[in-house]
């Protein structure tokens, strides 16, 4: 969402030998630390059914608002305490990671598909086709994401599927901008001209010649967009129009804890910190991939 210029396309690169990239990766602190945290959260999300001590909906209304283990009244039975319905916060966090990550990743893939397609077609054909692409991108940029998402979700009624779709359809602009300008630069390169001279169809050139060369950039973008989507999803769930309760997401857990922040601040602090750490890690990781694959493109 923040400045589009952040990820302004770097000069198109010649493919870097794998070994050089690996060497660079191994000495990149941000990539390693970020990657480790991301991997950890991914594992937790994947293994949720086996590692969560309780079910996400398992409640005990007689054990509401138990303190976390570090507080005076806490116990290891509920290391992070329980929420207003007596549900184990640790388990909700673990299941929440699964939900939040799934939504962000699937939505990013949808957005990447839409955005890349628009950028590729606009950039390759130019002229009127590009005018349409530019128009679509400009319209998209002018629409306030949170407001539209809130309104549509309120009309249709919240569900995880809807959330994924709407986020996917509202966050493709960066992919389109980046692919469009990269394609514009690339369509005059020799390998593209050669393919065209050999009689390859436009579709073939776009998908087989240009797209593979955009892979690195798109991967970096997907990573960074996942971070942004986690934040948007959290905000929507926080406002009560994201993931429908009782399904846990980190944003909705903050919303649940908000009313109790004066008495039980941990209910709101823990999920917020989790989002903060994960998003930081994803950004470090994404920046790291960019540095490794395209060192001269560093902002």
């Amino acid at each position, binding site marked *: 969402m923040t400045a589009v210029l952040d990820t302004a396309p770097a000069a198109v690169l010649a493919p870097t030998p794998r070994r050089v990239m690996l060497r660079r990766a191994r000495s990149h602190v941000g990539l390693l630390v970020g990657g480790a945290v991301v991997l950890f959260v991914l594992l937790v999300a994947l293994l949720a059914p086996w590692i969560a001590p309780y*079910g996400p*909906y*398992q*409640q005990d*209304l*007689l054990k*509401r*608002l138990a303190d976390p283990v570090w507080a005076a009244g806490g116990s290891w039975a509920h290391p992070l305490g329980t929420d*207003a*319905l007596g*549900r184990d916060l640790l388990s909700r966090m673990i299941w929440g990671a699964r939900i939040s990550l799934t939504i962000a990743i699937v939505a990013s893939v949808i957005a990447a598909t839409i955005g890349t397609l628009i950028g590729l077609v606009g950039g390759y054909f130019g002229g009127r086709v590009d005018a349409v692409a530019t128009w679509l991108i400009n319209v998209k940029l002018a629409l306030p994401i949170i407001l539209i998402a809130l309104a549509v979700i*309120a009309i249709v*009624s*919240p*569900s995880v599927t809807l959330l994924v779709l709407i986020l996917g359809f509202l966050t493709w602009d960066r992919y389109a901008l980046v692919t469009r300008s990269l394609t514009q630069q690339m369509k005059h390169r020799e390998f593209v001209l050669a393919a065209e001279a050999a009689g390859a169809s436009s579709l073939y050139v776009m998908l087989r010649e240009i797209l593979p060369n955009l892979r690195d950039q798109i991967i970096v973008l997907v990573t960074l967009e996942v971070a942004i989507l986690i934040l948007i999803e959290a905000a929507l769930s926080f406002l*009560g129009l994201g993931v*429908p*309760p*009782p*399904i846990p997401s980190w944003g909705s857990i903050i919303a649940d804890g*908000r*009313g*109790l*922040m*004066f*008495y039980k601040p941990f209910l709101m602090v823990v999920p917020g910190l989790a989002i903060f750490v994960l998003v930081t890690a994803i950004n470090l990781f994404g920046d790291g991939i960019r540095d490794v694959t395209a060192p001269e493109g560093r902002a």
Partner: protein
Amino acid sequence: MSRTRWGMAAAAALAAGWGLAATPASAGRANDTLNIVEILPLGSLDMYYAGYPQTEFMSDMLFDALVDYDPGTKSIVPLLAKSWKVTPGAIDFELRDDVTWHDGQKFTADDVVYTLGWLIDPASRYRFKFNWAWIKKVEKTGPYSVRVETNGQRPYDLLRLTLAPMFPKHVRGVLADTTEFGKHPVGTGPYKLVSFNEATNRLVVVKNPAYKWGGTTKAAHIGRVMMSTIPDMGAQVSALLAGKADLFRNLPADQAEALAKDPRFTFSVNPSIGTTYMWFDAAGRSGNKAIANPKVRQALAMAVDRGALAKIMSANQNVEQPKNLCWPDRIIGCAFTKTEPGYHPAEAKKLLAEAGYPNGFSVHITAYVGRLSQLAEAVAGYFAQIGVKATVEPVTVTTYTKKSLAGQIEMTVAGYTLGGLPDVSQQVTFFVSAADYSGDPELKKLGAAMDAEMDPEKRLKISSQFYDRIADDVYITPLTAMPHVITHLSDLDINSHSASGYGVGISDIKWK
């Protein structure tokens, strides 16, 4: 450098000016000012256009109806009318002749004819118009007497008039757009308007020195009352902590209990005439086939632990829990023999299997935002135990109504306080006439019969059939009591027995 300093000086000057311009919220016992904070905006003070609890509370201060309901004696008492005579087909009112509007004009029969006439005028457009369809005609029979002709006769006609504030013909009647009246209200009530700022949603009223027609039900104890909107519960609590609010409702009971550990604050619990409930789409309007199956509904009714759910609504307060939808001792015309089925998850699972859903099904629970959606979430938690996948959609009252009318609701976890009107007819209207999800013509017939029966004994008999039928077919099943939890300064004394849909009436609040 010098430029920077100039800039800072200018900023400081701006800031100082701004600080002075904003009037500090002077509240508290010292200046006899009560500062009430609401979560929803007031919008309008015209009850007919904005029939919300917070409007009702304010309306009650600014306006009077012809008659009033006294929850203490459970009877109708005089207000603007000093006496009345009820006959089949008409009610004749003798009005007080010493009542004045806040602008000094006299209150007369013309005002009554105007207000009730407007309610039934085909050209008037407002919410809940069907509530007044029983009035056939209103005519002046003298300068201070009025005859209200009715379509037939119902046991609660007079009671309903307690919720009809009288409006001045010389003010509201001359407006081109009657919705304007709700922003500059002129009434006869114990308080009169000082200011109502729409943008900030801040309302200020002061005691009406001329007021002497209120009796005990509308006594005013506090000199000045302010109401403002803070649309977030957390922010409401912080306003209380910061001394910017003296009283608010809506705070969940366990938060109120936590807050009351601070000696400056306490809370009062009004048992209320309402209950919370699960209301199922038995008619299959929403398309959820499972819910249309009575066995499934029975299973769901047995899947929840009502005793534990009561903790959400009442925390550790000892509040009596309902056995069926209505309260025999609090609501006129309430009777039943069948009660809620209790908590039997194993049996519930068996019933589900019998109904053809051994692995459960999915259901969408619509719930009001706030503590009721928390209740719904807990219900969803119990459903999960018997394999039913439920998601909760928290909505505002307006959205709820819209969805309900459109037949889009699979099931509701909600609460209803009968709009503060302690008569079963309110539940008939709410659950059967306004939005029918039972699809049961017999239930409709029983409701209509109960509405029309003038003999109290016979009415109770029909009532018993009505509520038993609801329990047998599990159209609606009660969950918990719905106490109003009023969080306030320890300095305040709240007599919390009013029937008001708001949770407390203005005459119930005074300084200790």
